């Protein structure tokens, strides 16, 4: 009698069982991974670039040339706070704290509740901050050593005027807390490290250039961190560093003002009215429409293209027939363009009507 092995029915049954074991095992792994917070890969931050006093120039934001500049720091921020070299997307950490649907939104709220008011830095009020050893503050630190931060479209969807933004208030308060900790630190090297951390967070926030408010908060983070660097540089007598910090601080206000000027130049508020019947009307000049079209198609800063597209959506609905046609053409042009983020935004503009709340806000701004 010979032994018989691997009979067909046995093999098939075992194979079918293996399919279930494989699917079940994979499901268990995915469930465990879902509940586990992402971990930042190890990263390092290079030392700030060397520069001499002779290298430092003060950008002329009030000069006529400035109107064509991108609204970005002209000073090389790598001289002050270079970005880290981490390979992860820093947004995977911060997206967890998004206010409405973030998995850790409650922890963000608890972080905000732990803030207390510290002393200021000279004339600069830093506002409320968390204690230096706050666990969420410490957890966030390796994430600002990463090289990139991208929220759209993989982590947060692009949905026209309803595009969600990350928890910017949390990030702003982290920048404040790092800066306050840095300025209070007796060791200036450790203190500068913390202030540079705040600057790096601001640089990461501005990197994507997709949403205006994120860019403004990023600018604020850079401002706060640089103020801290300036305080420490004054204390230690580091003239070069103090000069560099003061030049960077001097570039903050012009960027905010130019942002305001660009938004005002395409604002529909002066042209929107609400009739007694409750209907909204738009009396838009062609000159204003020209400005909007140019901003939507040619502006070097992507976030302003998005703002112009949102306004063109209003023109497409409420403008004169020729204005509607022109707005439609521009939106279609952006859809067909090479920028996937702008194309997605333009598609959502085509697919939805302007919200009444948006029009109401324009009317109230005009009053």
């Amino acid at each position, binding site marked *: 009698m010979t032994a018989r092995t691997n009979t067909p*029915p046995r093999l098939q049954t075992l194979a079918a069982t293996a399919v*279930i074991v494989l699917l079940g095992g994979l*499901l268990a792994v995915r469930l465990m991974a*879902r509940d586990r917070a992402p971990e930042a890969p190890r990263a390092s931050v290079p030392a700030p670039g060397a520069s001499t006093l002779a290298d430092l120039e003060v950008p002329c934001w009030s000069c006529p040339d400035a*109107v064509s500049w991108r609204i970005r720091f002209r000073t090389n921020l790598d001289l002050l706070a270079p970005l880290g070299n981490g390979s992860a997307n820093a947004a995977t950490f911060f997206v967890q704290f998004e206010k409405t649907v973030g998995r850790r939104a409650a922890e963000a709220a608890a972080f905000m509740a732990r803030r207390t008011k510290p002393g200021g830095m000279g004339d600069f009020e830093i506002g409320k901050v968390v204690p230096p050893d706050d666990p969420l503050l410490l957890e966030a630190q390796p994430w600002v050593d990463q090289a990139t931060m991208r929220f759209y479209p993989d982590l947060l969807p692009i949905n026209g005027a*309803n595009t969600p933004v990350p928890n910017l208030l949390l990030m702003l308060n982290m920048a404040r807390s790092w800066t306050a900790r840095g300025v209070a630190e007796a060791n200036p090297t450790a203190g500068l490290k913390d202030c540079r951390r705040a600057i790096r967070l601001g640089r990461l926030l501005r990197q994507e250039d997709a949403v205006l*408010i994120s860019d403004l908060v990023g600018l604020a983070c850079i401002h706060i961190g640089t103020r801290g660097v300036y305080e420490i540089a004054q204390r230690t007598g580091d003239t070069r560093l103090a000069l560099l910090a003061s030049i960077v601080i001097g570039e903050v206000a012009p960027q905010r003002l130019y942002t305001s000027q660009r938004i005002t130049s395409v*604002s529909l508020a002066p042209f929107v009215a609400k009739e007694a019947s409750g209907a909204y009307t738009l009396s838009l*000049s062609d000159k204003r429409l020209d400005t909007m079209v140019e901003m939507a198609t040619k502006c070097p800063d992507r976030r302003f293209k998005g703002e112009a597209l949102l306004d063109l959506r209003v023109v497409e609905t409420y403008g004169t027939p020729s204005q509607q046609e022109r707005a439609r053409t521009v939106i279609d042009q952006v859809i067909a363009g090479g920028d996937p983020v702008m194309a997605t935004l333009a598609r959502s503009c085509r697919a939805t009507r302007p919200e009444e709340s948006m029009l109401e806000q324009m009317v109230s701004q005009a009053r």
Partner: protein
Amino acid sequence: MSDQDVDRLLAGLVPPPPPSGTRELALAAARAAGIREVEAEDRWSRLWRSRPARLAWATTVAALLLAHAVLTVERAAQGGLSPSPAPVASRSGNDAELAAIAELPPLRLGLLPAIDPFGRPAAASSNPSTLSSRRPS
């Protein structure tokens, strides 16, 4: 040594015969082993061909695939939609801290040197704001 002596010596080397009944025992054991193997094969075949077992397997696989699909969709929809409706100002919502950063004062172009946002500065205009006639100058 003679042939008879060789035969007598070799006769002592003949192995002893097996105990009686060994052949019958061996055949019976072989028969029993063969039956067990056939029975085992039948169990696998029965399992493979069992309709309830196949239904349970298909249901389990479908449930696991559905769970994987749900996890995939959940991950894709992780960001969700925020109710915030409009750019800049209303994105700051009711939060005064964020509003202080996000809300920008409008810059009335007519009160500044006329600046084309895309690089063609002109002389300062002495005219008041040239925005909508609805807006008071």
